[in-house]
């Protein structure tokens, strides 16, 4: 019984990480019809930002990095990765609208370059981020049911991010413009919305979210140049299942994929679990080709 409760928690934890990664993809896809294959490398940038901040902090203070730096790392990862995303959009993706397949290839190339850049700067071996003391250990709800603090904290951060995105999209004027462009680009443009600006900002926002995902992954996984690639394909599946750039669809899809992955893996093995999830998504698309939710566009 407790094992199953733990599994549900694990499923939720995996889902939230997937969600953070997939949200950025879904936003830029819904808006620009662009899929960014360098998204995994944005995650990696977020993770290395956290690492670099820790190194810098301990170099400045002379001692081990404080717990504050770890919290500062969250917005910093968002900003640094967002800035890189902005740069990529402005210098590359902008020229490839209307050619989404070409964007796939170009962003893949960007991903390769970023990966190699990380390897040149930080070296090929994995690096380590020391988590603050208060994040170690867990909350014991039973003899076998221990919820790790780190995962609880990640869930909390993801919830805050979700709230932030909701506010941005539905309560801010930038978000209103973004929704307008999503619904009808030409109309929005003729009414004076700068679609270019909206595109850049949205892409940067998506990249920034990936950066936060990278920060989260430093807590639970390895930090190396190819860190993002492990998660990004699952995130693509989430986007496909969720439907065109709809945030509710993406959230639902992330939870379905995350839960299915952990449940299948517990029942069988990790390999079979992944295969089953893929087959189920393909079959689901037979029934609902547009994914869980469809954005109405004109």
């Amino acid at each position: 019984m407790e094992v199953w409760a733990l599994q549900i928690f694990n499923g939720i934890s995996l889902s939230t990480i997937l969600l953070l990664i997939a949200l950025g993809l879904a936003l830029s896809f819904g808006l620009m019809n662009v899929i960014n294959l360098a998204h995994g490398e944005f995650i990696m940038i977020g993770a290395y930002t956290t690492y670099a901040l820790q190194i810098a902090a301990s170099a400045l203070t002379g001692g081990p990095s404080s717990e504050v730096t770890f919290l500062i790392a969250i917005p910093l990862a968002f900003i640094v990765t967002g800035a890189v995303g902005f740069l990529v959009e402005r210098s590359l993706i902008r020229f490839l609208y209307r050619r989404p397949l070409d964007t796939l290839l170009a962003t893949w190339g960007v991903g390769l370059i970023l990966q190699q850049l990380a390897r040149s700067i930080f070296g090929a071996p994995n690096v380590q981020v020391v988590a603050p003391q208060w994040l170690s250990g867990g909350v014991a709800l039973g003899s076998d049911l221990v919820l790790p603090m780190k995962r609880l904290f990640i869930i909390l951060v993801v919830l805050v991010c979700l709230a932030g995105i909701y506010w941005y999209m539905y309560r801010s004027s930038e978000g209103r413009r973004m929704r307008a462009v999503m619904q009808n680009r030409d109309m929005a443009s003729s009414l004076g919305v700068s679609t270019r600006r909206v595109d850049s900002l949205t892409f940067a926002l998506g990249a920034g979210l990936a950066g936060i995902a990278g920060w989260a992954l430093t807590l639970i996984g390895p930090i190396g140049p190819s860190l993002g690639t492990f998660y990004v394909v699952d995130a693509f599946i989430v986007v496909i299942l969720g439907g065109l750039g709809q945030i509710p669809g993406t959230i639902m899809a992330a939870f379905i994929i995350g839960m299915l992955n952990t449940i299948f893996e517990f029942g069988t093995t990790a390999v079979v679990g992944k295969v089953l999830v893929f087959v189920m998504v393909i079959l689901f698309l037979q029934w609902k080709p547009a994914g869980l939710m469809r954005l109405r566009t004109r």
Partner: protein
Amino acid sequence: MFKSLLSKISRGYGATLPALLLGVAMLAAIACGPSAAPSAGEKPSGSMAGGEVIKVGVLHSLSGTMSISETAVRDATLLAIEEINASGGVMGKKLQPVIEDGASDWPTFAEKARKLLQNDKVAVVFGCWTSASRKAVLPVFESNNGLLFYPVQYEGLETSPNIFYTGATTNQQIVPAVEYLLGQGKKRFFLLGSDYVFPRTSNLIINRQLEGSGLKAVGEEYTPLGHTEYSTVISKIKAAKPDVVFNTLNGDSNVAFFKQLKDAGITAKDLPVISVSVAEEEVRGIGPDNIAGHLVAWNYFQTTNTPENTKFVAAYKAKYGANRVTDDPIEAGYFGVYLWKMAVEKAGSTDVAKVKEAAKGIQFSAPGGPVTIHMSNQHTAKTVRIGMVRADGQINEVWNSGKPVSPDPYLDTYTWAKGIRNMVQ
């Protein structure tokens, strides 16, 4: 004149010209490209006497996922070559390394091995890490009669006439590790590995060994290579209530596993994990505080107390930086070059057949203690060591076999392993 030519070209029929030029250039590039670069400007020299240098190949992944581990081994091999050259070379000739990138891709390994043997005509190749890359180059070495020194512990059950194995085989790492744990009173083993050949074969052997003691593993779990989500596996481990986890995970997965294990509230005291693919280099990536107290089984630690090791660690750090660490495969990549040198000098030739004959029984004082090439199976006898990871990332030896253990890749000397040789041959 030039301008008119340009305008003619731009008008169109000139399109044929660049086409032809490109075609020719392309064929030329294929024809002479692949071998031109590394050996450019060098005097051609065969593997036999006559030239002033002896070419030796170094074949490791310098890009891709395996570069994490393999670049350090390449560095150690190059260090040994440099030392040998500084002290007069081999038979008075300098060694000239030809470095190739296997790119973590097995067909690429086969291609580069073929290039080293057929184009560069190297006398010997030091390289490979994964079993998959070794299996990929094995037919190349056998059909071209080349010589490979392979520096990594592996799953045994192989004796290629063209490969010298300087890493541990199963009876120098896994089997003694299980014996040690049984001696410590551990009965409930949980086997966890990445889904590929080494863990699968190791666990096959461990299962037989446990059966030999009347035991049975309480769980056996495999995850895809590069897997980083271990919460579910940890749930399974909790449910199985083992005394010890025998870990054959590879690379990155170890980082995720140990981090998440610690977060799940499982300490080394409650449940020790013994790893056979985690060395000092990997401990740094995992974070020493995440793995401190857990066990590892190897033939060498950076802390191994021999005069040779003090010298080796100092030389390695002096060349590559004080923050670098040494570990078992790095050490094996280092002393392999010396073993080959001794065999060549004894044979008086780099001829493969003569070197193989001369290599039998050759002994060298390696950083991890004396190593001896076996009289028939081309493996090396090495001392087995089990250690506990310290909070500073180094490893404390807690047990060793006292003397070098003779290699037994087919486990012929173990009664519980009866029939394993027949399985393969």
